[in-house]
């Protein structure tokens, strides 16, 4: 079995939630493989279970049916080898940026490295996202974009096998978002990370991904279509705007989301 092409394996996953009105089927029959070093985005309308699927890969929830594997081992719970960048950054407000990252570094590397090395790792992670000057500031003192960068630094500092991102740029303004997307592109290029990212932004998906996984509308959402984005890296946002492959991919995703999977409200009602 070739390990690298099936780094994350999702087999027949189904997820039900218990609600006050009874059980709610969020995901059904999800099958997906993610190769090592691949950048995959999950896209779909709100409530289609993108985040649910990401939480399953993170191990924050366990599926009611099916199985998830990471590096040939079953995902039984969350762990630092699958780092998560949360939508709302989830930094601890009483720790400085440095301490927030250090907490993660310490958890993963304290057993094998001394304090100087741990600090160096933390500094390197903050430098990677360009936040060295803000290291001693608390999250309350920095902007939303900077907080999100600290969240990314925290996730990357653990040298995770997989980087999971739940709409990491969703709460940011368009300009900051574009800047962070470019930074993420450069970082992933450098670290060769395996990334699974949830988004609802078509441009973001096409710009960043190797493959775009499009989910159908919930309830009982499943993978509707998988689109391979065959654009060489490094990618440049400005040049891509007129690239025929980019335009075609963008069109395909929009077509899926707004033509075939439109009318979310009608389906929900």
């Amino acid at each position, binding site marked *: 079995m070739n390990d690298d092409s099936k780094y994350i394996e999702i087999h027949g996953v189904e997820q039900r939630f218990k609600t006050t009105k009874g059980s709610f089927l969020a995901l059904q029959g999800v099958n997906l493989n993610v190769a090592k070093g691949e950048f995959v985005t999950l896209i779909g309308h709100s409530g289609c279970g993108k985040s649910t699927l990401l939480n399953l890969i*993170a191990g*924050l929830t366990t599926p009611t049916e099916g199985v998830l594997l990471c590096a040939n081992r079953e995902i039984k*719970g*969350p*762990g*630092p080898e*699958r*780092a*998560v960048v*949360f939508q*709302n*950054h*989830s*930094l*601890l*407000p*009483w*720790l400085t940026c440095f301490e927030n990252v250090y*907490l*993660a570094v310490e*958890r993963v590397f304290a057993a094998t490295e001394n304090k100087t090395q741990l600090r160096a790792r933390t500094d390197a992670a903050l430098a990677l996202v360009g936040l060295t000057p803000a290291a001693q500031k*608390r*999250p*309350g003192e920095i902007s*939303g974009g900077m*907080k999100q960068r600290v969240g990314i630094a925290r996730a990357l500092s*653990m040298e995770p096998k997989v980087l999971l991102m739940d709409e990491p740029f969703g*709460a940011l303004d368009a300009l900051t978002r574009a800047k962070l997307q470019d930074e993420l592109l450069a970082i992933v290029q450098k670290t060769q990370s395996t990334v699974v990212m949830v988004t609802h932004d078509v441009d973001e998906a096409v710009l960043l991904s190797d493959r775009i996984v499009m989910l159908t509308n919930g309830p009982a959402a499943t993978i509707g279509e998988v689109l391979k984005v065959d654009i060489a890296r490094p990618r440049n946002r400005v040049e891509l705007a007129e690239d025929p492959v980019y335009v075609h991919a963008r069109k395909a995703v929009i077509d899926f989301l707004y033509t075939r999977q439109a009318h979310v409200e009608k389906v929900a009602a």
Partner: protein
Amino acid sequence: MVSAVFHSPMDASLPGPRAGEGRGEGVPRAEAAPHPTPLPRVEREKKQRSPIDLRAFWMRVLPPLAGFGLLVLIWELIAMKSTTGFPSPLVTWQQALTVFSDPFYSKGPNDQGVGWNVLSSLQRVAMGFGLAAAVGIPAGFAIGRFEFLARMFNPLIGLLRPVSPLAWLPIGLLVFKGANPAAIWTIFICSIWPMVINTAVGVQRVPSDYMNVAKVLNLSEWKIFTKILFPAVLPYMLTGVRLAVGTAWLVIVAAEMLTGGVGIGFWVWDEWNNLNVANIIIAIFVIGIVGLVLEFALIKLATAFTFEEVKS
């Protein structure tokens, strides 16, 4: 626009209306005009600002002064009408001067200075409150963290919390066979509830995002407690502490009236037996001021440890 507003007092003093002028013309004129006479403008601004500051100053000082004035006035009226020797504010003030001239004298167990009385009361409060914190805060964490414990203890807390503190005093006297431990016990039992409840609520309200971080990092229980749970709960806990200290200070006076010994509550009762009403009034002020200081100190402590909530 800004300059037009800024120069309006100046413009008003200039002869002729300016409203008809074009905006493009008006702005450079307005900027050019002050140059020959910069000094008067600065002076005028000063003059304008100082009465506003003065008004704000009076707004802060005058109402509290008026409040105290009203209190003294009513007090004076009651003292004038009184036939039972209710002391006037002036008499009380003079008595206060003698009482506070030597607050730390000691003539046997039943006659000590007001300073000693306050300190012994504070000592009892500190003991009872300290014990309550030592038991109540960990209990609150446990109740908040584990639903089983919450369901187990919530009915008990609901039952015992509304009981008047003084109802616990006989139990204390029976069990501890002494006035002082009984008073401390009473403080303990009445100040433990706010700390248990607030800490538990704080733990239950730790944002799930933070706990997700803990899960993803797979932090140890100790790290979760020191880095996430404790800092997140601290503001709630300090609110509990503040309520508890307030209650403790309320209760100590009543408890000491019943148990005797040295203490501000006992002092009140003793002065009532002596029919020294002026000293009772002094004691009331002392109790109020000490309570105010405790409250203020704890509010300062709480704000120092409250962090900005995560907004987005």
